[in-house]
């Protein structure tokens, strides 16, 4: 590592970018991350809403879910490889496994925290079913979910990189491992910087979303 200059890292970045490798790895990683997060949100949101609204269900399901939540998603890597082989599916699965329970618990907690008066007003104005969910419950939990999205996206990156190292054939995590095997510290740093830049970009986007008046109320009282 000693003697590695900024110029060499920059040259490594140009090499990776012009060869198309960096673009392909970024694309592969983003696809897996977004697919894993998408599945976590699609499954975790209704389950969280359900859990948030039902006290008895919470008492029944929270202990086993907490048990599962405490297991590192990386512990599932052998299963992921056996079930899905290598490539996109096992990595998407691992991101999903790591993110779904934090998202589910955050959604349930957000629902529990909605002031009862919002639901009373909704009843007074005949909001029911999907309309109640879409026009009252979702807007009421949106500020909280937006903050959770920031945390879960970061968690997704943290899981993605080692998952790609062990179960990927491309992607930024795989590229880091590949650079290490080839003793290309410049490329290793380029890929780490790419992950940081992408994660920071996503977080900035979510922070900007949090400034919209529909959700800003949840952060500024």
């Amino acid at each position: 590592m000693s003697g590695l200059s900024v110029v060499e890292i920059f040259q490594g970045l140009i090499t990776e970018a012009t060869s198309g490798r960096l673009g392909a790895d970024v694309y592969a990683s983003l696809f897996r991350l977004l697919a894993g997060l998408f599945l976590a949100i699609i499954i975790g949101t209704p389950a969280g809403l359900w859990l948030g609204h039902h006290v008895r269900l919470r008492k029944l399901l929270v202990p086993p879910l907490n048990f599962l939540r405490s297991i590192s998603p990386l512990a599932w890597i052998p299963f992921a490889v056996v079930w899905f082989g290598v490539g996109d599916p096992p990595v998407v699965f691992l991101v999903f496994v790591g993110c779904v329970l934090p998202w589910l618990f955050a959604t349930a907690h957000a629902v529990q925290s909605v002031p009862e008066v919002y639901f009373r007003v909704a009843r007074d104005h005949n909001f029911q079913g999907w309309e109640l969910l879409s026009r009252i419950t979702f807007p009421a939990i949106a500020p909280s979910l937006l903050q959770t999205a920031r945390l879960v996206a970061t968690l997704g990156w943290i899981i993605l990189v080692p998952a790609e190292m062990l179960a990927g054939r491309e992607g930024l995590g795989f590229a880091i491992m590949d650079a290490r095997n080839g003793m290309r510290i410049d490329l290793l740093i380029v890929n780490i910087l790419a992950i940081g830049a992408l994660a920071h970009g996503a977080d900035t986007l979510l922070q900007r979303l949090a400034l919209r008046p529909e959700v800003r109320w949840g952060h500024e009282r």
Partner: protein
Amino acid sequence: MSANKFKAKDLRFSYGKNLVLDGLTFEFQDGEFVAIVGASGCGKSTLLQILAGDRQSLSGDVSRPQRFRRVHQTDGLYPWLTVEQNIRLGLRGAPADCEADLLPLVKTLGIEGHLQHFPRELSGGLRQRVELARALVGRPEALLLDEPFSSLDYLTRLETRDYLAQVLKQRPITVVMVTHDIPEALFFADRVLLLAGRPAQIKRTITNPTRDASLAESIWKELR
């Protein structure tokens, strides 16, 4: 029981084994302003929630008008909606011509300059006036007020009280207000129900056609 008035017959309610309300019987007349007065924690708000249908009574009969609206103690506005969007919720299920009431009503309540604001941008008094506008814009048969001024400072409370009096003068309607503020109850109410004891019962009903503020002392003594 007719379904167009607030009525209760031998109403009882408990939280678990703790009996809170016992044997309440009353009937509120159309256009009447009734104040339910009692000490904090005596079950006033619970009674209002039963009248609104949020809670089921343990026993007894309860009926309510089909179209009623509520004003809450605090935070009854949706913070993700503008003032106008919040008020327009009150038009849901209301006759179509109620739309025409919106602007005159917001002018009466002095909120016409705030329609595009969000609730967090308003003072506490303004927020309560927006709640009043939302509650009244659909011309409900009755209004339930759950200590609507209790979160306001003294001057804002008086100001908001005057706005309510003004708007009710223009639109007579059945109103049930729960409050622990005796002068406030006597300011508005045709009839005052004193709720006291554990479990709470109606200790006395005071007719108050002359808005007689001198009754405050005797009511206070009775509630102590």
